[in-house]
């Protein structure tokens, strides 16, 4: 299973008819204005999606009641050409740095008013590690003793 899932990633490419500086600004400064409303992990449906503009900055949502849920962090910040974010959301839609995958977004200037945007969400094999752990736990009764520590960790992370 580990080998199968190692190269699993999501790749997107699109052309935006605007200059690269503008496209970068909309992606980052106006993150909340375009982020789809159905994609959030907090309890509040009314939320702001926020990307702090610096390396180590937080990528998070803030509900209308002030509650915050972390989505990830800024790993690379190279305006206006590239950012890399960590995506720290696990399979049950909770913040969980142990399954952190990476999202790289490149902004490439094709011409004065045309920008190519390439997005790669990679290292989804991080989920595979957990799936592999679960497989060991569920499939092999003989492996019980050895996998107990691992399972305790999984349970702890999911609670």
């Amino acid at each position, binding site marked *: 299973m580990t080998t199968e899932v190692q190269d699993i990633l999501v790749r997107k490419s699109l052309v*935006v008819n*605007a200059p690269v500086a*503008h496209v970068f600004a909309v992606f980052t400064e106006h993150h909340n204005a375009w982020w*789809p409303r159905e994609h959030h992990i907090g309890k509040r449906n009314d939320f702001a999606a926020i990307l702090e503009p610096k390396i180590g900055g937080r990528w998070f949502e803030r509900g209308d009641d002030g509650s915050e849920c972390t989505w990830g962090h800024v790993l690379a910040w190279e305006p206006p050409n590239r950012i890399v974010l960590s995506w720290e959301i696990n399979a049950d839609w909770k913040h969980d740095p142990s399954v952190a995958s990476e999202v790289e977004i490149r902004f490439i200037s094709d011409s004065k008013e045309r920008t190519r945007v390439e997005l790669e969400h990679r290292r989804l094999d991080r989920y595979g590690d957990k799936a592999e752990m679960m497989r060991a736990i569920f*499939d092999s009764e003989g492996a019980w003793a050895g996998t107990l520590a691992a399972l305790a960790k999984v349970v702890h992370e999911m609670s």
Partner: protein
Amino acid sequence: MAVGELADYFPISRPAVSQHLRVLSDARLVLHKREGTHNVYRLNPEGIAILREYLDTMWSRALHDFKALAESSYHRARKEKS
């Protein structure tokens, strides 16, 4: 693997184990079927693929909205200048 068997090995209650399994099941990372009075669980080998598909759809949607906003705001800014 039945819930009772699994719970024996943990310092958490059987309902707590059930709850974790339900969460994994909702995320389709494990599959379960009913055998008599028990729910039997196993790992869904397609779990990661399902997750990948979800993220693929999410980014398509997000980037579609992003492109629309980036282009409309740029055209607006240009009109205001001229």
